[in-house]
């Protein structure tokens, strides 16, 4: 116990509290490195400078689309939760998330006002867009593949291996491959479009396609593990259910819809939460493929933290964002924990 506690305290607990401590200071990386007294205690001013602005007001129509979907989510969770279509925890989680979507985007600078940090909220927004595109794509594709590959034959096992293979590659290998894949001059995708006489898309430097390119890369990279988790869930569904279903003429797609999906509900929810936690921390893909560009359209939260800390040397503000990341992730981790307990 002792050896673990030692490294745990020194390299995780202490840094965690030190991080909060730094976030309360005006702390320049270089200045403090030369003179340890060069930091100044500023209380919550860093928090204000990151998440707040001048003349901030709240209105329902600030970002209609996001807020409308938030409202829809609240209504849906109330309805589905009260009729028992969703488990209590899932309904609560959906409700709270939607409520945040309804309330938070309502804050906006009014006439003559502005955010103190113009890039922070757009960065959070980009991260959410990335998560919002990646998670459903991976989940649905992986679910279909898992259902199709859930047979104990050798060819199926071989194909499971194929789909899982890209998962073990490192982020830098993945970005290396896809950077060239997307290259308008040398890329495989461009070569194929040329074959059909189309003009190649400049994926990584076009504002319309950069995020899509990163999402495609991530889907390719992270599909395997999700598929495996679904396959594990499928193994737990009793054969008897399908045999009983077959008597009622429920085979194929019907069996998938009425037997597989309802029995897999808990696994699906858990896997979605797991992916949200994972992909909210996206860094390498955006850092290596697009440098957060073009025009900040793929700037994501962890990359902004990294830049603020190590390019701008502003450790105080960067730590505020790290705390923000921790709080958001903490919420989802608690949800994951509660969901995991619920089924036992």
């Amino acid at each position: 116990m002792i050896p673990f506690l030692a490294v745990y305290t020194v390299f995780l607990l202490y840094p965690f509290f030190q991080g909060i401590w730094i976030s309360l200071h005006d702390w320049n990386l270089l200045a403090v490195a030369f003179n340890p007294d060069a930091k100044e205690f500023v209380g919550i001013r860093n928090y204000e400078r990151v998440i707040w602005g001048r003349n901030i007001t709240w209105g329902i129509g600030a970002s209609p689309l996001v807020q409308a979907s938030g409202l829809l989510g609240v209504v849906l969770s109330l309805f589905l939760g009260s009729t028992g279509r969703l488990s209590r925890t899932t309904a609560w989680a959906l409700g709270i998330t939607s409520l945040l979507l309804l309330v938070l985007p309502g804050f906006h600078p009014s006439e003559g006002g502005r955010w103190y940090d113009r890039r922070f909220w757009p960065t959070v927004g980009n991260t959410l867009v990335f998560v919002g595109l990646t998670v459903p794509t991976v989940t649905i594709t992986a679910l279909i593949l898992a259902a199709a590959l859930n047979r104990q034959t050798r060819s199926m096992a071989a194909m499971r291996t194929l789909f899982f293979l890209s998962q073990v590659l490192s982020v830098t290998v993945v970005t290396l491959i896809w950077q060239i894949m997307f290259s308008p001059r040398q890329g495989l995708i461009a070569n194929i479009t040329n074959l059909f006489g189309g003009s190649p898309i400049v994926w990584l430097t076009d504002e319309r396609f950069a995020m899509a390119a990163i999402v495609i890369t991530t889907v390719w990279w992270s599909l395997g593990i999700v598929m495996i988790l679904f396959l594990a869930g499928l193994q737990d569904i009793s054969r008897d259910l399908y045999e009983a279903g077959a008597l009622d003429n429920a085979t194929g797609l019907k069996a998938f819809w009425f037997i597989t999906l309802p029995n897999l509900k808990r696994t699906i929810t858990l896997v979605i939460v797991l992916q949200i936690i994972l992909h909210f921390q996206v860094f390498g893909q955006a850092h290596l493929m697009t440098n957060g560009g073009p025009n900040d359209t793929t700037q994501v939260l962890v990359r902004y933290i990294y830049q603020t800390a190590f390019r701008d040397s502003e450790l105080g503000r960067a730590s505020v964002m790290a705390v923000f990341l921790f709080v958001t992730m903490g919420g989802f981790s608690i949800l994951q924990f509660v969901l995991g307990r619920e089924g036992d």
Partner: protein
Amino acid sequence: MLNRSHYWLIIALAIPAFIWLVPTIWMVSLSFQPNDVLARTTSTTALGLVPIPFTADNYAALFAFGQTPTWFLNSVIVALGMTLGVLAVSTTAGYALARLEFPFKSTLSVLCLIGLMVPEQAVFIPLYTMFADLGWHNSYQALILPRMAVPIGVFLMLSFFKAIPKDIEEAARLDGVGWLQIFWYVMLPLARPAMMTLAILTFLYAWNDYLWPLVSTQKPQFFTITLGLASIQSNFAQSEGLGRVMASGVIASLPVVLLFLIFQRYVVQAMTAGGSKG
């Protein structure tokens, strides 16, 4: 089971499976083509998916000069060091939490549970200042130590030790064997499968980790292969040629791919347990 519809399913799935494999094939294929050809076109034969014209020069050049061998060696040292370290602290802590009685035990296990929620990205700034104060950046210990503090391994070992019947230990204890010996001679050999899973999880993580090495290491002689690959991919066209960069990518992937193909069952288990942290 092997009826007609099954064969149709195989064929229907083989197409997406092949598409899924294409990017990897492409990397390998490009790594075996001459750089001067690649500078003109990447689609000589079958869209470039077949390495004709063929050459192994890229690999020869990689080992003759350039820093890839150093980076590869660094990765091996860091990954093995981290794996041994994690195994050492996790097995002991997992055993203690599962079987020994000591004060504040429940408090400590809750404390460890909280640690599961702290993402690496939330602590890398204070870790950076800490290692800077120690003057430890650009060293193996800086790359290895922080990851040893992650409690996932403790919980993996804890649940495994809990599942081992107590009778085995009781028998040993009646023979007058102390708990240290029980741990070393009885429990550890039993825990081999769980240790294997944890070892693979850690090794994959260490090999593929990017953010912390990026923050902590500036000197190229301490780069891991993952970090080194990032440093050459931004300017591959000018400096070394596409073929050589792709060869580096293949070399960087070889250990983890082999590990995966040989220990597939453990890798899948490990990544499921680790919640896809690889």
